[in-house]
């Protein structure tokens, strides 16, 4: 074996775990899911190619309405996460120095030491009819009877934003850290106010961080099952819930797979749209 062959072998060995992961856990299941989605049961254990599953999705209003609702709520949750995370990231990246900076960064991380399930139950303890918030409101005399704050869209959004916050704060802090203070001062020096500095200097600089944060948060939110189900209850109408129902409750793997494929297409299309609108590229935002 000569030197070049050694190098090649080394390259393939390094690539192997990643390639295996990609092929075994991503490509094969998705291709299989696509093939299941594109068939129809004609007799016991007999299947034929068909688009009936996709037809069912478009003809049954519950399905495509849930689909749209999930997409819109996810976009809303992403936007809210960005709005909340931006000032936090600005404070960490630009205002704090030294120890307090790393301390606050760590504080953002601490909730993620417990699982999403536990965190979500935490919110349920706070928000349920006999929960902490309801009790405090009654005790203070602001309300007469117990208040149910769970099982509505606001509760779902709250949980989604809370769970996604860190994934927005981290890329934003990285992006804002690299913004030179001199640029901000130059903007003020040239007559800019806080708003124009934000709009023309800070946001364009942070755009790659904003977009990569939004992509991560949007995908996490769209594919979330636990939070909408627990905080939204039976009426959560989240599309992942529909997929679960088809696979587990209805044993209709064909329709479930079709839903899975549609969800994948949806998230790809929305991410692509977001990149186009913000003028960013996928490699440009995620390679930072």
């Amino acid at each position, binding site marked *: 074996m000569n030197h070049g062959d050694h190098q090649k072998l080394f390259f393939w060995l390094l690539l192997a775990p990643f390639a295996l992961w990609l092929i075994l856990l991503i490509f094969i299941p998705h291709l299989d899911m696509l093939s299941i989605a594109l068939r129809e049961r004609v007799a016991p254990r007999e299947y034929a190619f068909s688009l009936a599953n996709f037809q069912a999705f478009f003809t049954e209003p519950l399905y495509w309405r849930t689909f749209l609702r999930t997409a819109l709520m996810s976009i809303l949750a992403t936007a809210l996460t960005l709005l909340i995370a931006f000032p936090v990231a600005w404070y960490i990246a630009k205002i704090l120095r030294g120890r307090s900076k790393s301390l606050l960064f760590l504080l953002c991380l601490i909730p993620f030491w417990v699982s999403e399930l536990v965190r979500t139950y935490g919110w349920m303890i706070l928000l349920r009819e006999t929960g902490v918030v309801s009790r405090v409101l009654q005790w203070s005399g602001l309300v007469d009877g117990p208040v149910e704050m769970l099982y509505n869209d606001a509760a779902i959004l709250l949980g989604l934003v809370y769970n996604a916050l860190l994934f927005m704060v981290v890329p934003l802090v990285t992006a804002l850290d690299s913004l030179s203070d*001199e640029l901000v001062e*130059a903007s003020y*020096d*040239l007559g*800019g*106010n806080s708003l124009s500095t934000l709009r*023309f*200097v800070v946001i364009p600089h942070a755009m790659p961080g904003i977009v990569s944060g939004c992509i991560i948060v949007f995908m996490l939110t769209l594919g979330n099952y636990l939070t909408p189900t627990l905080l939204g209850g039976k009426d959560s109408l989240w599309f992942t819930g529909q997929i679960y129902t088809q696979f587990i409750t209805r044993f209709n793997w064909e329709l479930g797979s079709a839903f899975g494929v549609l969800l994948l297409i949806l998230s790809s299309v929305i991410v692509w749209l977001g990149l186009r609108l913000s003028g960013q590229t996928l490699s440009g935002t995620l390679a930072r």
Partner: protein
Amino acid sequence: MSSDLTPDLETRQLLRRFGHFTAVDQIDLSIARGEFFSILGPSGCGKTTLLRMLAGFDQPDSGDILIRGESMLGVAPNKRPVNMVFQHLALFPMMNVADNIAYGLRRRGTDRHAIAAKVRTALESVDLPDAGDKRIDQLSGGQKQRVAIARALVLEPRLLLLDEPLGALDLKLREHMKVELKQLQQRIGTTFIYITHDQSEALVMSDRIAVMQRGRFEQTGSPTDLYYSPESAFVAGFVGDANRWRGTVTQVNGDTVQVSTGNGLQLLCSSKQTPQQGETVSVFVRPEAIGIGEAAGGADNRLEGRIANLLFNGANSSALLLCGPGEDEVRVALPQTGQYRHLKRGDVLSLYFSAAQASCFGGDAA
């Protein structure tokens, strides 16, 4: 109320402390219209703090800043008739050159056609008429410099503040930009306040220079004043090169002082401070003020020295000589007229300089 006699900038007892450290210590300053004023000092002397207070990025603890007679206390940076060229220029990388220059005009709400015309004029005034569409990272160091200056000047500020903007350039370009900046300032007549730690930048460009040290102005004057008649040991040592001796005053005769150095040299010096006999003083003699050979009419001070090293540097060449019984190191400028071309190490030279060229300062010199 602002007549032509009102100074463009005045500071009154300006003070800024950080904890126990006084960065700017009660500075009084007055800069006339159209002046190129430099503040020269080592790093940490407070010059950046002073400039940031003028721009509005830092607030003085006490004292006042007046621009054409109007107090700037409590006026935000974006409301001051002052613009700044930042140390690292701070051009906006997300905008092209024309948008960078138009940024300030747009914030003022200038109408679109007027902006386009002004940007064009500004680019022409810095010799970059076709650079408008370029991205910032396509510009060379010198071009960025000029865009940064154009971006500030297009707003027609009363004062242009420059925070060591030549620091990042290589030597050749820096020499070139010095001349260019001075010519630009003379052409447009805007008052420039330039801070630097590089004495040559300050000497070449300025009408007046303030030498700053520990938050105070040691001396303010024209470059020639600072060079020929420094008023303190710090200024004598910081502006220009100087040979330096420590010694004790043995005799005082009006302005002329006789100093005996620890190594047994007797020097005749001039002093404005009239030191006392027995006082410890520092004596400064510039390398270029020392003559080689025999003085025509006799000289106040004579030395003999052996060449320890020749430092050839074109027009700035010099020789290091070991002089006197204590073998004090003395630096002498060698004019490159060809006369000293054949000097070599070990040669012995006679040196002379007048008492007027040897300034002596009492007290503890920095």
